[in-house]
């Protein structure tokens, strides 16, 4: 009985890693698309997004089966419940990566693009997502906490970009549409950062049993 349970937990772990990998790929591609918009990359992202949706359903099913059939307790229960929360964050990351890819078609030719350091923000976000997944894979509490902290950095980057774009719109009102697109992208990245921080928080919960410093 226990061995079956262990097998299911292991399968859950592997599936989460795979889903995390898909998210990383999606957002890495999105940031690639930002620098060099290419139909094939955009298509890849939407395929990955589809895969992520499937994986989310699979993992949720697996978690449900685990809870119903095995009635896990303590750490195992924490892992399963954290997994259920994590997949929805991962799924959102996938969606937002594909949203970014959709907008990239129109923006990067704009001179405003070179003024703002979107590339820095993109790579910082990619790193956050990668780190949050890695912290889960390796049960690395330290890394998870760093991810949670680095969310503030992303937030600052977003407000920097926003300020710059406001100035740019004031001096070039005809470019305001492009600027808004850029603002959307920045917002998406900021949201992805939030989701990565959420994942890290659930990782922290599955390790320590505390969510945002409080016992659930």
């Amino acid at each position, binding site marked *: 009985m226990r061995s079956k349970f262990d097998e299911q937990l292991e399968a859950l*772990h592997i599936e989460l890693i795979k889903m*995390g*990998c898909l998210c990383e790929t999606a957002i890495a591609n999105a940031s690639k698309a930002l620098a060099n918009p290419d139909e094939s990359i955009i298509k890849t992202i939407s395929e990955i997004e589809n895969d992520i949706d499937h994986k989310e359903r699979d993992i949720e099913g697996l978690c449900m089966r685990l809870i119903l059939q095995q009635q896990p307790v303590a750490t195992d229960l924490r892992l399963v419940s954290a997994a259920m929360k994590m997949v929805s964050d991962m799924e959102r990351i996938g969606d937002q990566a594909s949203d970014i890819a959709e907008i990239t078609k129109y923006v990067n030719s704009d001179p405003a693009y070179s003024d703002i350091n979107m590339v820095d923000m993109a790579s910082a976000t990619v790193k956050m997502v990668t780190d949050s997944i*890695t912290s889960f*894979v*390796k049960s690395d509490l330290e890394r998870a906490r760093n991810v949670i902290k680095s969310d503030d950095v992303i937030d600052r980057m977003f407000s920097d970009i926003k300020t710059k774009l406001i100035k740019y719109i004031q001096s070039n009102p005809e470019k305001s549409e492009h600027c808004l697109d850029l603002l959307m992208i920045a917002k998406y990245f900021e949201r992805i950062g939030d989701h990565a921080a959420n994942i890290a928080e659930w990782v922290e919960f599955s390790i320590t049993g505390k969510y945002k410093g409080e016992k659930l």
Partner: protein
Amino acid sequence: MKKKISITMCCMTAIAVIITAIAISLIGYCKNYDEMKKSIKAEAEYVAEAMGSKNKAYLDSVKNITPSRITWIDDSGNVLYDSTGEELPNHNDRPEVVQALESGSGESSRLSETLREQTYYYALKLNDGTILRMANTTNSVYKDIFSTLPYIIVIIAVILIFTIITANNETEKIIKPINELNLDNPSSNLKYDELAPLLIRIEKQNEDIEKYISRLRAKQVEFETVTENMSEGLIIVNKKANILSCNKSALEILNDGEFNYTNKSILDLNHSKSFIETAEAAVNGKHAETELDIDSRSYMIIASPVMQLNTITGAVIIIIDITEKKSRDELRREFSANVSHELKTPLTAISGYAEIMKEGWAKPEDFRKFAEKIYNEAHRLINLIEDIIKLSRLDENEIELNRESVDILELSKNIALRLDPKAKEKNVSISVNGKSACISGVRQILDEMIYNLCDNAIKYNNDGGKVNIIVKDYTANVSVTVKDNGIGIPAEDLDRVFERFYCVDKSHSKESGGTGLGLSIVKHGAKFHNAKINIDSTPGVGTAIEIVFNKNIN
């Protein structure tokens, strides 16, 4: 074993007690029955003798002193008297009566199933032809046995308790040496002869196992030593992609900290998409390769399935660092692209001028000018090819090792003399300072190196600039520094100026006549002489390039 022995002993005891009880009951019964038979017979004979011609009244008097039943029957079977006083039917069909009528006496016994009683009849023929029958009733054998049953049960219970205790103690005593067998050294405890063959066999097998294990261990150590010292990462996984073995290099490449890989999936080591796909392909029976970038280094991941009897039992994954190879490949590609481009440029010019002249589009007075241009371009081409040949020779170490003691100061003065016309042309002054210092080296290469440095210093100088060659002799080293106050090199280009065909100011390279190979020749020459190059440059202020030769090495 203990349990089995106890149960067997208890069963045996119980069966023994039951059989004994039944046997004793049967024997007792038989004896009683025989006694009864004898006493009935004797009684019958007494009564017959005493009865004589007496009648019923006598029988009535006898009835009160004997427990036996007395029946008097006439020769036709009619009952004349019965001590029970019951009216009885004709008795001439009773076996004992029939026998008595025939032979003078007869006996029979009848069992009453309902009362579980056995009645014994004895009939005697009297002198007057009548028959006297005596009968007595005893319990049947079954009733006897049943009546003793409670005692038997009590006895069995007592004996069983006793047996269980004894059996436990005894089996404990028997089993103790077996439990205490030292299986690591079986021959040391030969307490039971019966166990000897087993123990000897175990001892032999122990030895075999030990040999086998030590062989395996040796192999394992050998394998680990080999894999641990590999710079390539090696991971062995089972068919569920769980790590079975993983060497140090693989852990260092894929993981930045301590990692206990026991029972972990390979995905725990790295979860990039290409890595997952490669590992999955391998455990599904397909050979797969991919490139993976980790921390700005490139790795080649090669995964092959492990097959045993046509089933996949796992996979072997090898990780090879290909960063150097990749950058070399890139340099080579860049070099060939550059070479073709650099060779084509002068050729295009030559062909262009030649075409103009051939087609007669040029005025005859311009012929000289075009010829000069063609000559210049051809010269440039020759210079370029010469440089490439020099470089490739340095690359291949093809230059004859004609080492001799070379005075760097003298060599520098010679070079300065040769370059003087060129310097004057650009209005640059050239000077040589320092003490005479000798090193052992190949004169031709050293000449080439310093010449190229000075040539560059003149080429990339301003009008009225200065070039200074300083030779210094230290205890262990000799250094030659070529210093100018020319245009300088931007900091971001400092690392790249030694690359082939790298020109800081690409737009002016042709004008200055540089091939882009000068500093590359210097670099290779320095490598050939084990010398170090220090470069210090500030844009707009000047450049100083120092070559430090080690006296001891050369």
